């Protein structure tokens, strides 16, 4: 067997592939507050679905309901067409990586990784995994995640990145059909995040399980997702491929939340109009395009590949990104900005997108 492959035959020989999840009419009430409010969502099999939203938007609750850690007040969770809303924990063939990893501090790395398999063996001596199988699986996953030299350590002796890899290893060693990740990168240094992202993507690719990742970082969401879900105030605002969400935000909130720097919005009589800072073009004087604004450069932020220019006009500030090679403006310059019609997003008085 190719040791670098994540996919190994399960003891019963079935090949792993991700489950399809479907949430319908989900409500989760805490006291008088609804953390989830009539959520309907289909999570495609073998997708990497990223749920994104500001803190308190209900994304973590969504994940916990999926995992079975929380029971919905109303609504159903279906897995491959089977209602699992009330099925017990541990019977759902899913695994989860917690935000702070939740490693068992008194167990070694090997102990942490093998915990689930050992329980399986304990519960079913006859058909459960053999001791040899457990050892093999642990070393395979350890090799995959570069943990071989750490197997005997305890979590307290590991760095943040190492802990995250242990948590991942613990989650995937049983080859779950669904893998849930709760803000897996939030505890890592910036430098480690890229590596971690790569690792998660590789795991997703090879494991072929359905992966649901929750984050508040829209950049992470855009770069990793095959499917993106934007949430706010307990509701799903938009779900779809990241390009769709980015290009055609369903409402003002999504428009602002996804993409960096955030979309500029200007009120109009019928609602508002917005454009992405990358879609504007700066002119020292005068300008062209369907929308032209004038203002004064307030500050410039060099980003390496260009610079973000924050301008002020009578209605407030807006941002424009200048690419390398353009003639760079300076604070205090009077400028005008032109945006093409096709790059404009229009929203009605309720903030919903007006397609045109």
């Amino acid at each position, binding site marked *: 067997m190719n040791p670098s492959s994540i996919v190994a035959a399960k003891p019963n020989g079935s090949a792993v592939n991700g489950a399809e999840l479907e949430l319908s009419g989900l409500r989760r009430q805490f006291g008088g507050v609804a953390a989830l409010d009539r959520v309907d969502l289909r999570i495609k099999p073998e997708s990497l679905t990223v749920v994104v939203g500001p803190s308190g938007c209900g994304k973590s609750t969504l994940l916990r309901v999926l*995992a*079975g*850690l929380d029971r919905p007040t109303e609504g159903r969770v279906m897995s491959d067409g089977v209602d699992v809303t009330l099925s017990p*924990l*541990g*019977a759902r063939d*899913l*695994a*989860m990586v*917690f*935000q*702070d990893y*939740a*490693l*068992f*501090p*008194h*167990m070694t790395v090997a102990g942490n990784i093998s*915990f*689930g398999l050992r*329980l*399986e063996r*304990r*519960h079913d001596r006859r058909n459960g995994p053999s001791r040899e199988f457990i050892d093999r699986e642990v070393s395979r996953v350890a090799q995959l995640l570069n943990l071989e030299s750490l197997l005997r350590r305890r979590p307290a002796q590991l760095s943040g990145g190492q802990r995250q890899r242990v948590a991942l290893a*613990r989650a995937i060693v*049983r080859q779950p059909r669904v893998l849930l990740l709760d803000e897996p990168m939030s505890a890592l240094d910036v430098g480690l995040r890229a590596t971690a992202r790569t690792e998660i993507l590789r795991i997703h690719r090879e494991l072929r399980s359905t992966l649901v990742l929750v984050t508040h970082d829209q950049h992470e969401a855009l770069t990793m997702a095959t499917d993106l879900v934007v949430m706010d105030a307990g509701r799903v605002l938009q779900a779809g491929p990241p390009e769709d969400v980015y290009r055609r935000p369903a409402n003002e909130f999504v428009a602002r939340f996804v993409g960096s720097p955030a979309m500029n919005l200007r009120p109009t009589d019928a609602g508002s109009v917005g454009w992405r800072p990358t879609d504007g073009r700066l002119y020292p004087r005068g300008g062209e395009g369907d929308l032209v604004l004038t203002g004064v450069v307030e500050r410039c932020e060099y980003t390496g590949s260009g610079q973000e220019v924050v301008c002020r006009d009578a209605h407030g500030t807006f941002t424009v990104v200048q690419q390398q090679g353009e003639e760079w403006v300076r604070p205090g310059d009077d400028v005008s900005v032109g945006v093409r019609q096709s790059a404009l997003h229009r929203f009605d008085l309720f903030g919903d997108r007006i397609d045109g």
Partner: protein
Amino acid sequence: MHPTDRLRPAVAHALWHLVLAGASLAMAFPMLWSLLTSFKGPQDVFSPSPLPWPATLDNYAAVLSSWPVGMLVGNTFIMSAGVAAGQLVIAVLAGFALVVLAPRMRPAVLSACTIALAVPPQAIIIPQFLLTTRLGWQNSELGLIVPQLGTSALAVLLLVEHVAAVPAAQIEAAALQGARPIETLWHVVLPAIRPAILAVGILVFITTWNEYLWPLLIAPRSHDATVQIGLAQFQGEGGTDYGALMAASVLTSLPIVVVYIIASRRIIDSFIKAGLRP
């Protein structure tokens, strides 16, 4: 004592030692004097001289030869260990249930525990005694141990906070890995609260070791009695042999004191962690 401690820190420091050493001496004095007296011969027992000179081991020899020290200590050990183990099992199970399985029950159950703590033992001892004797548990380990499990309330109050301090995610992670509740308790919660369990266990052990009223009622016969009863019965009709009594006192208290000194940090820590900063 305000400016002095900055002007003359040495004086303040000396004063500090003086007060604390004085308090320590005052608190430990009776036991200290017992220890010294236990080495005095019959002529010197009442001597005001602190030094047991000429020192003798006769008192210890007398106690060991005519007083069933081994049996008493053994009985007391079985009782104390039994009660400590029983209370820990009850408290850990309950703590787990109240934090993890049925958190809604927590306020009600903890109130019930607090009230139970306030019930004076003497006020309910007659029914306890009747029940124990009707069960045929008089003069038996069961009779000494089981009824004292009613005082598990303190252990519950102490341990439930520690269980609550175990990160919820660890417990959930275990459940997601397919652990049954009892396995989560055993593999995740227990190792996490082991120091607290040890501390509470030692506390219960010491309290039970020193229990007087219940063993007096249930097992006052010398062969079933505990050290406390044995000590209280030391005073025979022909007057008290204080040297021997002090030796017996030392022999039966010393193990506990040693256990305490070894574990005192832990015990105090457990109070601290239990939030028993009332």
